[in-house]
């Protein structure tokens, strides 16, 4: 867990009263919507189709149980009893009233939660691996560095008025769970030959209208230099960044236009000027942040407790354990992923009751800590293996034990035309239909790891470009039409998907996905060959043939 310091608490509280005043002046007409818009966006308040939407940050995806309960409270008191976990370690409330927002903001501030850096052209909340600090083989807890960057960039003038929004993600494991290659800056914690901690720095990733996979700009930047290096990148960006054209102002466009070599030379020049400045990080600063992350007092526990051995006789438990339970760095413990993708449900939604109950379970079984990942699922990061059977029973009762993590029904979908004012087409009902089609867990397991990502417009909030199967909703002559790509991925081997052919209608999407899956099952060389490997081996042609032969 992380303990905020006094400066943060003061800042958050000041924001609350400032925002209350702004809302009051807006409601009285003293502020026009034009004047107010930038202020509300600074506080995470958007306008959607049916209501205001309130986006709250969950920095590096770590939540304490009192914070989760506060989110449940906001869902219940000010919203319609649920919240939506997003791909950027945020939670969104979809039905909040402007007049009540200051109260909601204040209730959250009491537990140190805020909405800063969730919108606007600034440095967004720095995201990280949801398994940070507990994943086996991790170089170091990446949240220490996320927090360092958060502190440095929060409200820093140079980062508050960027050409466009700016997103950073950090990972410290070989397997990238933070999707760093689709961020403006991606950082991979590594050690050099001398055993010193530093970063491989990637730059220029992003999706949206013009998607790019980030490129490595420097193979090793020492930890103590990371702030100056990021600052150098931002300065070059600020200098060139095209403020005249909103579609071109992302750093990915700049990197693409200058070329990574020229861009990195410019950054290098800039960096030489500032690397020995006050931006160099003292070990004490890092140590101070490190000391604010506390880890549970783990017990010495057996690798294979009796409880687990006995529960193994129950096939339902075993199915869940094999799917949703991952190894922990400490023997006798596990990381448990909690699927927010029930059959027929909107991906990423959790009710207030589920959040409250989950907070209780986290208190009992996970040292009071919950994690939020970019796949729109939650996790309990420190569960003793002996507690797994009891936890599973409790989760199952809450509808939170669907054993489909990383399977075809673990779909990432944006809100789409059901909520979003920018949408061209619906996303969630497509996801719901697909979870019904593939509800049979044996079938889903037979298919194996397969990520479907759905966006309701080209902004790509559902990361469709990097879905193994990507679905993008567009509008054609007043009708919803969906473009299907295959072969994308968001991990350490990130790639953009390839379009398989003309768009298909709303009612046809699930059939098309079934066709693609059937083609894959027929084409794969052996059961271990994953969908994306088959696509890589054979290209899109055989899938295209299968899908369009009968259409």
């Amino acid at each position: 867990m992380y303990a905020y310091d006094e400066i943060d608490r003061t800042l958050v509280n000041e924001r609350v009263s400032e925002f209350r005043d702004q809302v009051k002046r807006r409601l009285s007409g003293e502020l026009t919507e034009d004047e107010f818009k930038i202020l509300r966006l600074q506080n995470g308040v958007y306008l959607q189709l049916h209501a205001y939407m309130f986006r709250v940050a969950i920095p590096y995806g770590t939540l304490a149980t009192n914070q989760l309960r506060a989110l449940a409270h906001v869902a219940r008191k000010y919203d319609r009893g649920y919240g939506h976990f997003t791909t950027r370690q945020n939670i969104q409330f979809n039905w909040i009233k402007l007049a009540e927002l200051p109260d909601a903001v204040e209730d959250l501030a009491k537990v140190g939660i805020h909405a800063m850096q969730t919108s606007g052209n600034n440095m967004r909340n720095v995201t990280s691996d949801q398994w940070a600090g507990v994943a086996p083989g991790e170089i170091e807890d990446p949240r220490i560095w996320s927090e360092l960057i958060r502190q440095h960039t929060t409200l820093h003038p140079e980062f508050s008025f960027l050409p466009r929004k700016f997103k950073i993600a950090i990972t410290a494991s070989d397997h990238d769970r933070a999707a760093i290659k689709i961020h403006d800056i991606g950082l991979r914690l590594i050690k050099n030959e001398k055993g010193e901690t530093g970063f491989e720095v990637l730059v220029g990733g992003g999706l949206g209208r013009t998607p790019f996979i980030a490129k490595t700009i420097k193979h090793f930047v020492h930890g103590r230099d990371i702030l100056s290096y990021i600052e150098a990148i931002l300065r070059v960006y600020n200098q060139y960044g095209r403020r005249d054209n909103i579609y071109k102002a992302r750093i990915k466009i700049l990197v693409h236009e200058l070329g990574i070599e020229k861009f990195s030379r410019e950054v290098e020049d800039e960096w030489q000027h500032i690397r020995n400045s006050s931006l160099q990080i003292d070990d004490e600063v890092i140590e101070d942040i490190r000391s604010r992350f506390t880890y549970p007092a783990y017990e010495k526990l057996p690798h294979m407790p009796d409880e687990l051995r006995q529960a193994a006789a129950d096939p339902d438990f075993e199915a869940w354990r094999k799917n949703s339970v991952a190894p922990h760095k400490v023997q006798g413990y596990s990381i448990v992923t909690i699927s927010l993708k029930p059959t027929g449900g909107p991906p990423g939604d959790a009710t207030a009751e589920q959040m409250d109950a989950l907070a209780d379970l986290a208190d009992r079984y996970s040292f009071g800590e919950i994690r939020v990942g970019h796949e729109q699922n939650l996790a309990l990061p420190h569960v003793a293996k002996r507690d797994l059977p009891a936890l599973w029973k409790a989760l199952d009762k809450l509808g939170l034990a669907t054993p489909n993590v990383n399977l075809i029904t673990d779909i990432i979908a944006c809100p789409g035309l059901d909520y979003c004012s920018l949408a061209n087409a619906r996303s969630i009902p497509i996801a719901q239909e697909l979870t019904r089609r593939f509800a049979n867990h044996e079938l889903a397991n037979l298919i194996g790891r397969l990520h479907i990502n759905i966006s309701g417009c080209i902004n790509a909030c559902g990361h469709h470009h990097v879905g193994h199967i990507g679905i993008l909703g567009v509008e054609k002559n007043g009708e919803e039409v969906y473009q299907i790509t295959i072969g994308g991925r968001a991990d350490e081997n990130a790639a953009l998907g390839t379009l398989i052919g003309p768009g298909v209608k709303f009612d046809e999407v699930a059939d098309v996905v079934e066709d693609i899956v059937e083609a894959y099952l027929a084409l794969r060389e052996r059961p271990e060959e994953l969908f994306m490997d088959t696509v890589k081996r054979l290209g899109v042609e055989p899938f295209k043939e299968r899908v369009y032969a009968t259409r």
Partner: protein
Amino acid sequence: MTSPLEQKKIKIAGPSIVTANRTWDGIVVYRTAAKGWSAELSEAAIVRNSDEARALLAEAVADDVGAIGPYIAPVQVGEDGKILPGNLREQIRRTGVTIGQPAQV
């Protein structure tokens, strides 16, 4: 932000209304003939040519305390005078999400 009145020439292809979100709570509202806002589409003022549309929008934009983000949206008017949304987006804005909300399931 430029005012919606300046954004482009206003041209409508058929019967239209002006819709927005109510400022204090964000709900979907429609501009009425009585120079107010209503949550009921049936109470919306219908405009049938560009001049009417421009006038109704101008009036709506001026009431910034009442509602935000006003724009012109198409509707269908039945023979009985019943007003129906003219596209899926407006249909969803009127009747709500098409997915069932988790807290109600």
